[in-house]
């Protein structure tokens, strides 16, 4: 107890928030990807595999071209391609979307592991730059949180607000939500349901692709098999906990990562806590939300149903 209070006094909370924001970045990207896809009616549990694929391709191309930008471009393109594969299997061939997602996850883990072993290299990838603004970064509180962060943290924050505008304030978003809620009615109104779904699944890949880039171009400069370690699924949890709303999904991600960052600090101060149990928080909260014990989450009503004219 003494140790706990002592630690609570000594922890640098600004630093803690900055760490949590970084940790939340790939989770938020995955959640945003999930929002685009699921708002249009396509379940996407393949986000994990898409991020992993992008992480590998980003690494490989950044090393080959010696440019993190070209690496990121290649990674994001590969992510969009894999997402479209998910779209093809689930929209065109109407395979159960959960099965399709499971397939993509198994495939991504296999192919990245295989390529990693087949072309093993010790080379480290060049990093994407950090946004570190002289003057601003010394500001109290917001300086360390916002103005001394990896570039993709900023891209993520912009993507959160952009997604919010796109989904709720644009024609595109209206159409996306229409094909996810009532595809028949949307079709009658002249919207090409499956084309909207393909497009949104592709954007979903773009988002997860940026999430993948965060692993190999901003966090560490190498690739290891299965390095995304379930972050895509936490993103899915954040999406559900945030009720398919971008801002809420972002807040949910922070809610998931702040306790993690706090646990990291406690460990430094040798506070005896069951850390493993703390890490179950995102999953527990998601189950509780889904069960409607806090407030009922309302997924798009046509989610998971292929559209047949």
């Amino acid at each position, binding site marked *: 107890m003494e140790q706990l209070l002592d630690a609570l006094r000594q922890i640098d909370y600004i630093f803690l928030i900055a760490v949590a924001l970084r940790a939340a970045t790939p989770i938020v990207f995955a959640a945003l990807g999930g929002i685009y896809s*699921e708002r249009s009616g396509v*379940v996407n*549990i393949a986000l994990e595999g898409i991020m992993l694929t992008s992480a590998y391709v980003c690494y490989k191309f950044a090393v080959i071209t010696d440019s993190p930008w070209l690496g990121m471009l290649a990674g994001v393109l590969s992510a969009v391609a894999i997402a479209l594969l998910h779209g093809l*299997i689930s929209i*065109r*061939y*109407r*395979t*159960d*979307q*959960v*099965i*399709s997602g*499971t*397939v*993509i*996850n*198994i*495939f991504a*883990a*296999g*192919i*990245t*592991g*295989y*390529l*990693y*072993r*087949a*072309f093993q290299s010790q080379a480290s990838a060049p990093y994407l730059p950090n946004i570190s603004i002289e003057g601003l970064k010394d500001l109290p509180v917001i300086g360390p949180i916002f103005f001394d962060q990896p570039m993709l943290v900023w891209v993520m924050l912009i993507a959160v607000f952009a997604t919010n505008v796109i989904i709720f304030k644009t024609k595109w978003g209206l159409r996306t939500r229409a094909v996810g809620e009532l595809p028949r009615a949307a079709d009658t109104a002249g919207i090409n349901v499956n084309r909207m779904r393909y497009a949104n699944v592709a954007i979903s890949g773009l988002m997860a692709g940026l999430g993948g880039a965060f692993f190999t171009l901003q966090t560490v400069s190498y690739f290891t*098999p299965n390095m995304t370690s*379930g972050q895509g*699924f936490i993103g*899915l*949890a954040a999406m*559900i906990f945030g009720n398919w709303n971008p801002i809420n999904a972002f807040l949910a991600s922070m809610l998931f990562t702040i306790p993690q960052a706090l646990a990291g600090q406690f460990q430094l101060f040798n506070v005896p806590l*069951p850390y*493993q*149990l703390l*890490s*179950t928080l*995102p*999953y*527990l909260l*998601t*189950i509780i939300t*889904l*069960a*409607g*014990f806090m407030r009922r989450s309302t*997924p798009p*009503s046509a*989610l*998971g*149903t292929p559209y047949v004219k």
Partner: protein
Amino acid sequence: MRNFSFAKLWSGAWPAVASVFLALVVAGLVMVVTGSDPIKAYTSLIEGAFLRPGTDTRPTAFLDTLVSATPYLILALGISLAFTAGLFNIGAEGQLYMGALASVMVGFLVKGLPPIIHLPLSLLAGAVMGALWAGIAGWLKATRGAPEVVTTIMLNYISYSVVNFMVNGPLRHTGTAPRTPDIEPSAVLPNMLPSPERLHWGFVIALLCAVAYYFLVYRSPLGLRIRLVGANKEAARYAGIQVNRTYLITMLISGGLCGLAGGVEILSLYRFMPSEFTTGYGFDSIAVALLGQGNPIGILLAAILFGALANGAGYMQFSSGVSNYIISVLQAFIIVFVAAPGIVRDLFGWIRIKRAAPALPAKGGTK
């Protein structure tokens, strides 16, 4: 299966066999493109999985394939049962973890029992734990409409943390590595053959599960209800079947099988609980269940195939230099071709694949 005939069996098995064959071809192409020799890889894979004879220090390859097939078989039966009711149990891995943990706990905490009681008790603990763990998802589905796809995924991650916590904390043995103490000898699931063979009685348990699955699904009133709910839950409801109750019971049995798989694996091969017990069996078994198409014989053959892939992969990597990750690629292609026969049709217009009624959920989704 009342009118059993090989012709009928073959017409159901044909899409699965074609899918496996196509997947081998496509994975072979992946190897060619990346500069590996698929012929050499597949030859050594078959050798490592089936043909290598045993020596004084090395188990017979085929018998070891059956060892690897054991958890696949039990898990896939559990997953397939859920499919039959239109449920998607992605939580097999977590149920396996929790089942293994419970079996080990009874295995080392309970002392002084004769094996005839201790071993069944330990296995039962695993099955009950798995059933309860899946039962959470089943109960939330039945009472609150929470989608089992998502809840079982979340429960997977919770189970990893629980096991990790228990093994590093309350159950940790006194040695250096984070693991539990060894189970009592009376709780060990023994080998069927003398060392170095590893084939254990768990394989027989798995076969018994397959027989029980057949009688449950195709010969019992409960099985009929499960199949009706899976085929059309509205019609089932009109027919007076309590759909939600059937969901809960199905998840309990499905999780019970997955928990049993964990118990069998841990009481035979490990005999203690390690902190890193990442088997991946729970996910691969989804593929086994899909490939088996809801038929216990199909699931048995699919489990042996996947056991062979798992068992032969090590030797393949050693002898041909092709990474064993290619096995996952191969497995992914197998499921794609099984689950989306349209792709195969479009790829090879001349192949006519008759779609046997696969036991898939009628409609998926995180709804």
